[in-house]
């Protein structure tokens, strides 16, 4: 994108085009012959990774929007229907939802890279500021996207975040009304968020073009922070950078696929599988992980306006970075002190993120305050001061000189560290599992856990029986249609069996020609009828607590894993908090109430229910449901079967997900390997 190009296509048709619109020349000069510093390391591939992720998000998002309904009453259901009924809808949704997290992960790496190597310094200030603008736009887009599924966290996250603007003096309230389009977060809010969520990514794409343009004018920074001087310092973008970026993207895809296929709910919040309810605030509102450090800053300042200002200035301060850090040396590689403070800063950010997810009480609040001060001190005190007092090591004269001086030790040591850490995690895990607290649901062996997990067909069929004979008298299963019983990966009934099962139910239909509603036998396309006509009736019949719909219950319930479990869970693919909890509650009833716990009238003691007082009486007892396959008719077995069945209702395509995941992994590993060797070949004489 810099200056006219002397590119001449050989094909006459392309020559014709080139004389009228030199777009090929632009591409050629920007992405083929463009000289890139030859000492770039893999941290520089994150630019390409980010472009790839942006494309991915737009592509999956456009398709999802074709199936999504932006209406307060329908949005939650339409997302569930995407996952259940749209071809590969579960894949699209996982790609988009995990994609947002991966996008932010990559952007944080990209930003920290810039911070470490001083990529914001003269002459790249505008490039850096454009990057901060992209980041702000991403945060807005991510936030509005999180609202669209219209679950509890969506709704209350939207409430909390939009209310931030009410802290602005004088205009605050009117800004908030403008955001809501009403008197509170509601349908108009959802509609405008949907519209903006569709618009902003294209703005991001526009700013990305500016960002890349500015990059190609100023040239790329590099790990040594010295500008390329001669031909010898650079290599042409294609094939060198292209193939290296390709390898970087392939490795990143491995991580991305791990989330999509094996841990799709790891980064989400179980509460978001509960439809939005404006009358009930979830006990603990947490934003998505990528906002947590800023949320922690907001909460640690005890004044509302100051908190909001603190939170926004934590981001805006990045724009002033080029002037706050006046040191002449760019790269922290040659700045012994700056290097140490950089890593301290990274740790501060991670700790702030951890605090953002904790309840705002006691020690967490104090720690939050200390870390908030550290965060700002890094920018306002440490960096300006270092520029004055630090004595950097001498910088090499040129890039080629720097390359001669070093071997590949950095990469090797990082790899060794990662392997060691991984081994440590896996090793310590087994004994640690055993010592879990007693109020946490005990772990179970589920047939569906792990990378090759499958549902146990027998358990699904028995679980359906338990649901039908016991649970169904109070709990609905409204997202499940009878036809689902005959689908692949389900209980394994034939189409005829599912139809016969359906016909045992009476379903309300109508109005007929006379305008009356009538009842008819169920058909495979019908959904399980709910035991109560509406929520109020359910509430009234059950002493004030409406029995929740069970379709999603195993994904909508969870319990805090706490540190460090949630880290191990990532490696072990532990995703069964929900089933563990559900089966524990089913078995956790006890007539004998322990001392110190008071159970109000009309409630029952349950060991695993939060607060221990549950409105549901003990639902299962030994021998209550007869099994004809000889399985033991005990509460433990019932609980296990019905939980397996409810896991299937929550995630009917899990088997397909894990199967496809394995294939994708085999492909990606081969692909990444090929990319690596191609890259080695291309770079063979450039190192």
């Amino acid at each position, binding site marked *: 994108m810099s200056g006219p190009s002397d590119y001449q296509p050989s094909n006459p048709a392309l020559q014709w085009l080139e004389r009228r619109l030199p777009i090929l020349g632009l591409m050629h000069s920007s992405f083929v012959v463009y000289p890139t510093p030859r000492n770039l390391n893999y941290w520089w591939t994150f630019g390409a990774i980010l472009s790839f992720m942006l494309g991915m998000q737009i592509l999956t998002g456009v398709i999802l929007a074709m199936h999504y309904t932006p209406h307060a009453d329908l949005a939650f259901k339409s997302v569930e229907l995407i996952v259940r009924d749209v071809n590969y809808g579960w894949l699209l949704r996982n790609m988009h939802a995990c994609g947002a997290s991966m996008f932010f992960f990559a952007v944080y790496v990209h930003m920290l890279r810039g911070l470490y190597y001083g990529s914001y310094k003269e002459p790249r200030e505008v490039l850096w500021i454009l990057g901060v603008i992209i980041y702000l736009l991403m945060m807005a887009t991510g936030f509005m996207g999180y609202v669209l599924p219209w679950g509890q966290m969506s709704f*209350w996250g939207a*409430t*909390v975040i*939009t*209310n*931030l603007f*009410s802290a602005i003096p004088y205009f605050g309230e009117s800004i908030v*009304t*403008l955001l*809501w*389009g*009403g*008197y*509170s*977060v*509601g349908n*108009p809010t959802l509609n*405008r968020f949907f519209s903006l969520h569709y618009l902003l990514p294209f703005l991001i794409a526009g700013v990305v073009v500016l960002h890349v343009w500015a990059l190609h004018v100023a040239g790329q920074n590099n790990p040594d922070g010295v500008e390329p001087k001669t031909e010898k310092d650079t290599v042409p973008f294609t094939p060198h950078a292209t193939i290296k970026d390709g390898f970087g993207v392939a490795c990143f895809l491995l991580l991305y696929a791990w989330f999509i296929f094996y841990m799709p709910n790891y980064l989400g919040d179980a509460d978001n599988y509960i439809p939005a309810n*404006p*009358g*009930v*605030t979830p*006990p*603990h*509102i947490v934003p998505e992980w990528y906002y947590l450090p800023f949320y922690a800053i907001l*909460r640690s300042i*005890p*004044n*509302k*306006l100051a*908190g909001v200002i603190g939170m926004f200035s934590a981001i805006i301060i990045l724009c002033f970075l080029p002037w706050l850090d006046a040191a002449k040396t760019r790269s922290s590689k040659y700045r012994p002190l700056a290097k140490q403070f950089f890593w301290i800063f990274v740790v501060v950010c991670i700790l702030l993120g951890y605090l953002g997810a904790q309840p*705002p*009480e006691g020690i967490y609040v104090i720690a939050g305050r200390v870390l908030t001060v550290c965060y700002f001190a890094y920018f306002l005190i440490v960096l300006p001061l270092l520029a004055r007092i630090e004595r950097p090591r001498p910088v090499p004269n040129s890039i080629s000189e720097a390359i001669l001086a070093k071997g590949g030790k950095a990469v090797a040591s990082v790899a060794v560290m990662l392997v060691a850490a991984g081994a440590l995690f896996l090793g310590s895990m087994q004994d640690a599992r055993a010592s879990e607290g007693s109020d946490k649901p005990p772990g179970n062996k589920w047939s569906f856990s792990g990378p090759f997990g499958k549902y146990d067909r027998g358990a699904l069929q028995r679980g359906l029986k338990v649901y039908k004979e016991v649970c169904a008298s109070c709990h609905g299963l409204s997202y499940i249609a009878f036809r689902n019983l005959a689908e692949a990966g389900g209980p394994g009934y034939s189409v005829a069996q599912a139809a016969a099962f359906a016909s045992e139910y009476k379903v309300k239909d109508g109005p007929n020609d006379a305008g009356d509603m009538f009842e008819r036998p169920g058909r495979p396309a019908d959904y399980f009828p709910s035991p109560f006509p509406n929520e109020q009736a359910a509430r009234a019949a059950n002493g004030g607590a409406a029995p929740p719909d069970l379709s999603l219950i195993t994904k909508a319930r969870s319990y805090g894993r706490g540190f460090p479990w949630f880290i191990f869970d990532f490696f072990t693919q532990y995703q069964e908090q929900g089933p563990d909890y559900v089966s524990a509650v089913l078995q956790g009833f006890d007539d004998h109430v322990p001392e110190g716990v008071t159970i109000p009238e009309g409630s029952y003691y349950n060991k695993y229910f939060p607060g221990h007082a549950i409105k549901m009486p003990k639902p299962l007892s030994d021998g209550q449901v007869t099994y004809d396959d000889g399985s033991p008719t005990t509460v433990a077995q019932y609980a296990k079967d019905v939980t397996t069945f409810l896991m299937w209702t929550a995630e009917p395509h899990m088997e397909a997900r894990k199967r496809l995941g394995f294939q994708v992994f085999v492909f990606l590993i081969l692909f990444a390997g090929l990319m690596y060797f191609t890259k080695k070949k291309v770079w063979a004489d450039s190192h």
Partner: protein
Amino acid sequence: MNPDASTIAAGAPIEVDLSPVAEGQDIKVFWRGKPIYISHRTKKQIDEARAVNVASLPDPETDEARVKSGHEQWLVVIGICTHLGCIPIAHEGNYDGFFCPCHGSQYDSSGRIRQGPAPANLPVPPYQFVSDTKIQIG
């Protein structure tokens, strides 16, 4: 992008019958999409609310100014935390009033902020008594 006509029309005043609410109980009604708490306060709650030194409050306001005279037992407030908008839980916290689970703000039996990050008291919506047992909100 301000509220459209139908949203505004749906925000018209509503009437609420208070007779079923016993002393010490409260009900939650929705008006303009916002939860409104109507509490039938006990003698103890009223006395507590009146006993505090108003000047010491973060957002000084007397209990008398927050209820209608002659109907001291009825407290009507918008149940939206003035911090970041969560719904506080009634009958919780240290002040016999409301407790916000989100960031721990505590309100007293007059809906005034006593502790936590919230800057202001729970707002009192516009309402009047149409009879002794019925109010009109809005």
